[in-house]
C-alpha cells in the first residue's frame, strides 16, 4: 500500500517536473495540470490552485458525459480574447494547458503531445505503473488517492520498509497494514432530503472497506473532514447508497456540515478515518 503510494508520488513528481520543463520551454503557458478520468489530480503547477482544478474537472466532466455521440473527447480547444485552453487526452489522463494570446500554439502542442506521452512511457518502463494498475480496475475501484505534489518530499522512510521492487506486482492483500490514518481527497456533493441526518456524510463503500482492511477490520464510523483552508470537523460516515455517485471520488455532505466548513459542492476536502 505504502509502496503503491510512493509509486504514485514518483509519477506525480515526474509529471510535475515535466510540466515545469514544458513551461520553461514555452513560457506563455500560464497554467498546466493533469487529472485522471475519475477526477484525481495527478500533477499541477504551482500557479493553479486545486480549487480551480476541481471546478475545471467538474465543467469538463459535463462535456465528457455527453460526448459519446462523437466518440468521447480526445481533444478540446477553447480560444478566447486573452488566451486559450487546451485539453488533450493521453490514455485516460487529461492534460490541461492554459496559454496567453502570445503563445505559439503549435509549439505548445508539439511540446505537450511529445513530452508527456514520452515521460509516461518511460515511467512505465522504469517503474511498473501504479496509474496503469488503477486504470485496469473497474471504475468503482478507482479511488481518488491524490498524490499531492507537495507530499512527494518524504519517500525515504517508505523505501526503508519496502525494499523489494518486485512487490509492486503483488496484489494489495499481501501488503502490510499501516497504523497511520491515510487521508483521501474527495469532491463535495450535496446530500439533501427530508430524512437525511445533518451529521452524517456518505463516501464510497470501497474507500470505507479499504480503510477497514487497513485497520484490522475495525469498523469506520467516523471521519475527519478537513478543508484546504484548514477548517475541519468530525462526523459520522456511512457508505454512499446511490450508485451514480460511486467510484467518483465524492463525499456527499449535508448542508449543515458544508456551512460549518464554509465549503460548497464541487470543492475538494481531505477525509481521513477516525480509529477508535
Amino acid at each position, binding site marked *: 500500500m505504502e509502496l503503491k503510494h510512493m509509486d504514485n508520488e514518483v509519477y506525480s513528481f515526474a509529471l510535475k517536473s515535466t510540466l515545469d520543463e514544458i513551461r520553461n520551454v514555452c513560457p506563455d503557458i*500560464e*497554467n498546466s495540470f493533469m487529472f485522471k478520468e475519475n477526477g484525481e489530480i495527478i500533477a499541477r503547477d504551482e500557479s493553479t490552485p486545486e480549487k*480551480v482544478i476541481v*471546478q*475545471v474537472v467538474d*465543467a*469538463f466532466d*459535463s*462535456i465528457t*458525459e*455527453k*460526448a*459519446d*455521440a*462523437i*466518440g*468521447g*473527447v*480526445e*481533444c*478540446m*480547444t*477553447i*480560444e*478566447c*480574447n*486573452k*488566451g*486559450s*485552453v487546451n485539453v488533450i487526452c493521453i490514455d485516460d489522463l487529461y492534460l490541461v494547458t*492554459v496559454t496567453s494570446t502570445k503563445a505559439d500554439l503549435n509549439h505548445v502542442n508539439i511540446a505537450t503531445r511529445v513530452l508527456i506521452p514520452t515521460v509516461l512511457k518511460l515511467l512505465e518502463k522504469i517503474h511498473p505503473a501504479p496509474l496503469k494498475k488503477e486504470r485496469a480496475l473497474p471504475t468503482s475501484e478507482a479511488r481518488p488517492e491524490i498524490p499531492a505534489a507537495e507530499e512527494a518530499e518524504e519517500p525515504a522512510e517508505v523505501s526503508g520498509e519496502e525494499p523489494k521492487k518486485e512487490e509492486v506486482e503483488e496484489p494489495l492483500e499481501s501488503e502490510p497494514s499501516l497504523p497511520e490514518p491515510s487521508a483521501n481527497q474527495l469532491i463535495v456533493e450535496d446530500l439533501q432530503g427530508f430524512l437525511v441526518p445533518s451529521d452524517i456524510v456518505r463516501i464510497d463503500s470501497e474507500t470505507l472497506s479499504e480503510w477497514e482492511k487497513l485497520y484490522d477490520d475495525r469498523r469506520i464510523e467516523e471521519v475527519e473532514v478537513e478543508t484546504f483552508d484548514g477548517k475541519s470537523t468530525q462526523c459520522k460516515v456511512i457508505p454512499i447508497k446511490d450508485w451514480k455517485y460511486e467510484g467518483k471520488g465524492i463525499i456527499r455532505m449535508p448542508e449543515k456540515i458544508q456551512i460549518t466548513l464554509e465549503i460548497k459542492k464541487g470543492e475538494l476536502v481531505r477525509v481521513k478515518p477516525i480509529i477508535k
Partner: protein
Amino acid sequence: MGKKKKSAQNAATVAEPVAVEATSSNDLRACLEEIKGYKGVIGYILRSSASATIDLKDPTKLIDYAVLSSSALDAADEFSELFKLGKIKNIVVEGKDVKKLSLTIHEKRISVFMEKNTDCEKILKRLRALGQN
C-alpha cells in the same frame, strides 16, 4: 441541385424565428447551408434565444449533438471565467470520430459538426467573416 433538396428535407426548424429577425439570421443560415456542402461537414446547429435550426445528415444524433453543443458552450464559459480569458472566440471539441466547432455570432450560438480529419480553419474563417459584417 439534388444536394440542396436533400438538405432542405433534413433541416428541422425546432421553433419558428420571430418575424422581425434581422437579415443577419438569414445570412447565417445561408452561410451554414454553404458550409454544410463542404467536404466532411455532417451538419450544424444554429441557436438564438427564440429559435433553433438543426440540420444534420444523421437526424438520430440530433438530441445528442444538441446536448453536447450546449454543454460545451456552458463549460467553455466556465473555463474562460476561471482563467480570466475574456470573450470566447471559438471552441473545438474532437472526439474519436467527429469534431465539433462552436462559436457565437450576433448572439447566436453555432455548432458545426464534421468528420475528424476535416480542416475547420476554412469553416472558421467563413463564419468569422460573416461575424465581422
